[in-house]
């Protein structure tokens, strides 16, 4: 069955995928950050080259040289300086660094959408002229494949040699223990900047080589680049050779599968598998690979803590703002109210992220998958076209559909039992990509699906009220999750899993429960989202959209449910009033600022307000304590009894 010709054709895609995965892996090894922005940098550089060559009519060679030798390294140095160095200074967790790289990704996506629009372009300039090389034996090999393989060889050899040099040693030392490396006299900032420069250059190379074989489109291109994450997981974040071999293997397999012909449903399935073989590989990889070798020691990536409750005072009083934002649309005119329908729905989806990531510390980048699934299941239930189930009338859909999604959530939570931090993030993202590619984008699943609100809630006003009710129910559930015994157990798991285990918390069951609850919430939100627009749009539940939602939640305070509402309101308001891409850009910029605004926007705003509203002392300079004093609870009680103003008519000594 295998043919040499197809294998050679497959090497073309395989080599670029291998190169892309290699770049991601090298960036990780050079910087200690799993750079989710890798795909977006590749996309940005590919677009830039297109702009220079197709619009400005620069000579191709000059443009490519400028992009890869000047723009890419400069961009790498820039993000190191502005984004990752502040995070290093306050010893951020790997999860926070992951979100920062997510910020870079989102900023680039937003900027690209604003600049070039969301439509696809098919005329990306090809760096390598199309020419067939004749191999001994008569087989032909495109020049592009040869170039791809040559670049890979250079990178792999460069890595193998560079590792042994003193510079390589310095890089490894800085990535593993930055502070200790500095004590040895290494300029860690310079080493890190070098790593970022190299990493983004590799991203640029992969993007420029990949562009001619793909449609140039901000979200789509980035996602395809991110799918090559598969080979990085196969390489367990360490072995460049395994990454390359993995990429080549999937590429060749993809080409060979085109020879297989089936009939009927099997044919559609096979076609879906073939064209999305990297997604299948990613899914298989995250399920089969048991452990990633993360940089910075064995337990570097295990702390998924994004919320820093212990170090930040709790934020109160923002419920008012959230409630106000929700009540406002009832007074809006018809078009604005139609747009506002998305706010409570999106808020519920964001709250589902707060539950899984904020309260229990499990990074889930896959909520878009649950939301989309919820939308699809609800629509089919209402129409009675879900196989094996009767038609569900009216509002009951909003109860049944989330319950039907729960098993999927539990399935997704299953890998989470053993995974934390980065690996869990990759796993959940992979599952969301798989859902998008194999369900939302399959005509068999989505064609003929009609979405409309439940009968009694057909008018926008009524539907909005229904949404508010759902949001209230969601908040009630969330409140129960965050308080009492269950809430304490969740926080224990978030802050120290081993410690929670030692205290008798059934971590396994708790994690599954959290994933189940969060998936049901996301499904509810997704169903409402689709009903509000009266259509099922796969783009609305794109995995990249899920990344943006996650970043939005982190930006507005990952453990803050009112923050999720305010975030949803802001996202929708920006989307409807300003050019598409603006909201993405805003969320991205805010995510980049996390290094300077610990705890997110809400916490920072709260601190600022507190500082502004704090009343000056009535007379004279405020007493300065000789040192910062932290009281125990007993101490606080004593202090209260001392400072308590005398009651009216009380006796004075």
């Amino acid at each position, binding site marked *: 069955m295998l043919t040499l010709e197809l294998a050679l054709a497959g090497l073309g895609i395989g080599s670029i995928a291998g190169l892309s995965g290699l770049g991601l892996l090298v960036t990780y090894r050079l910087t200690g950050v799993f750079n989710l922005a890798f795909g977006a940098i590749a996309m940005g550089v590919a677009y830039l080259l297109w702009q220079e060559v197709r619009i400005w009519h620069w000579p191709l060679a000059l443009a490519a040289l400028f992009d890869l030798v000047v723009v890419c390294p400069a961009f790498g140095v820039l993000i190191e300086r502005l984004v990752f160095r502040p995070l290093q200074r306050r010893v951020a967790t790997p999860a926070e660094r992951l979100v920062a790289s997510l910020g870079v990704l989102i900023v680039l996506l937003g900027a690209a959408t604003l600049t070039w629009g969301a439509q696809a372009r098919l005329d990306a300039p090809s760096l390598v002229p199309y020419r067939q090389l004749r191999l001994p034996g008569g087989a032909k090999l495109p020049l592009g494949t040869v170039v791809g393989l040559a670049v890979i060889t250079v990178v792999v050899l460069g890595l193998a040699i560079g590792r042994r040099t003193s510079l390589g*040693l310095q890089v*490894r030392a800085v990535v*593993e223990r930055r502070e200790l490396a500095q004590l*040895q*006299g*290494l300029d860690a*900032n310079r080493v890190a900047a070098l790593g970022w420069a190299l990493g983004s250059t590799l991203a640029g190379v992969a993007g420029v080589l990949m562009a001619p074989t793909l449609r140039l489109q901000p979200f789509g291109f980035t996602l395809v680049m991110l799918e090559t994450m598969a080979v990085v997981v196969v390489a367990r974040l360490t072995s460049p050779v395994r990454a390359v071999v993995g990429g080549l293997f999937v590429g060749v397999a993809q080409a060979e599968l085109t020879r297989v012909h089936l009939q009927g449903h099997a044919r559609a399935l096979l076609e879906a598998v073939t064209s999305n073989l990297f997604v299948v590989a990613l899914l298989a990889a995250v399920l089969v690979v048991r452990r990633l070798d993360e940089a910075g*020691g064995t337990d570097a990536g295990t702390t998924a803590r994004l919320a820093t409750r212990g170090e930040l005072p709790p934020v109160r009083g923002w419920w008012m703002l959230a409630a106000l934002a929700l009540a406002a649309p009832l007074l809006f005119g018809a078009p604005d109210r139609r747009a506002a329908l998305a706010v409570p729905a999106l808020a519920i989806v964001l709250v589902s992220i707060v539950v899984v990531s904020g309260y229990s510390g499990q990074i889930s980048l896959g909520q878009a998958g649950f939301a989309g699934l919820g939308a699809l299941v609800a629509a089919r239930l209402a129409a009675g076209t879900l196989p094996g189930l009767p038609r569900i009338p009216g509002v009951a859909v909003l109860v049944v559909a989330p319950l039907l999604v729960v098993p999927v959530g539990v399935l997704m939570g299953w890998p989470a039992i053993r995974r934390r931090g980065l690996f869990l993030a990759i796993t959940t993202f992979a599952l969301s990509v798989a859902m998008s590619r194999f369900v939302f984008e399959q005509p068999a699943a989505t064609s003929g699906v009609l979405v409309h609100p439940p009968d009694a809630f057909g008018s926008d006003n009524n539907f909005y009220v229904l949404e508010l009710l759902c949001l209230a129910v969601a908040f009630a559930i969330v409140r129960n999750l965050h308080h009492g015994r269950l809430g304490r157990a969740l926080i224990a798991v978030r802050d120290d899993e081993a410690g929670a285990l030692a205290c008798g918390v059934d971590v396994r069951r708790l994690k599954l429960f959290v994933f189940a609850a969060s998936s049901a919430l996301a499904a509810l939100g997704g169903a409402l989202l689709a009903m509000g627009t009266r259509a099922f749009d796969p783009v609305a539940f794109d995995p990249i959209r899920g990344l943006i939602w996650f970043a939005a939640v982190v930006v507005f305070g990952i453990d803050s449910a009112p923050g999720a509402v305010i975030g949803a309101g802001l996202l929708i308001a920006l989307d409807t009033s300003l050019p598409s891409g603006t909201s993405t850009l805003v969320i991205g910029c805010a995510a980049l600022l996390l290094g300077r605004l610990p705890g997110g926007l809400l916490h920072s705003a709260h601190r600022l307000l507190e500082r502004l509203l704090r009343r000056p002392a009535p007379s004279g300079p405020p007493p300065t304590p000789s040192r*910062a004093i932290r009281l125990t609870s007993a101490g606080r009680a004593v202090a209260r009894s001392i400072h308590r103003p005398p009651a009216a008519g009380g006796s004075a000594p």
Partner: protein
Amino acid sequence: MTAGLDVVHVRAGYGAVEALHDVTLRFPLGSVVALLGRNGAGKSSLLRVVAGTLDVGSGRVTWRGRDITRLPPHQRAAAGLTVVPDDPNVFLDLSVAENLALFGHGAPPEPVYAAFPELAGKGGQRAGTLSGGERQMLALGRLLLRPGAALLLDEVSRGLSAGAVERLYRVLDDLATPDRTIVVVEQYQPNILRRADLIYVLSRGELAWAGEPSELTTGALPAALV
């Protein structure tokens, strides 16, 4: 005694929690200083302030008369401050030989293998697979390869056998020259008390006691330590 390392009116901490409250300590050249105190007394924070890995809120740090308060850590290392921090003091993912190459900036590692024969023959082994004591010896290797003019050691005797501690202090004896400052941070270690010229005791982020070993018998020291 000439000006060595001076920490003057330093306040520093982590977020809302201040770990050092207006601490002033002087470590003259040519002296061996013991910095003692219980857990949480601020010893390691003080070392991090000197190394430059913990920002100073107010006050200053000077080294041989030069203000280094705002100097980044790697430039302090270049200026002769050698800090061996607390626990993660070797690169676990690197081999023993690679660790020593980083410590010594390429100097041949033989002196370390001579002083600590336990490490000889383990050059290719990953530091993460060493035992606690071996790791400590590896961390001390940098004193033998490229000792600066100020050596600051954070609880280096922890996890070492009595014999290894004895060897460690013999190494320190050899390094104690008139143009060098040695600061040894310990919870309690009789060895250093015998050798120190000066003893500082920190308690709750403040200097609780300062004096010479001969004054120890007065009984003032144990109050802050025990």
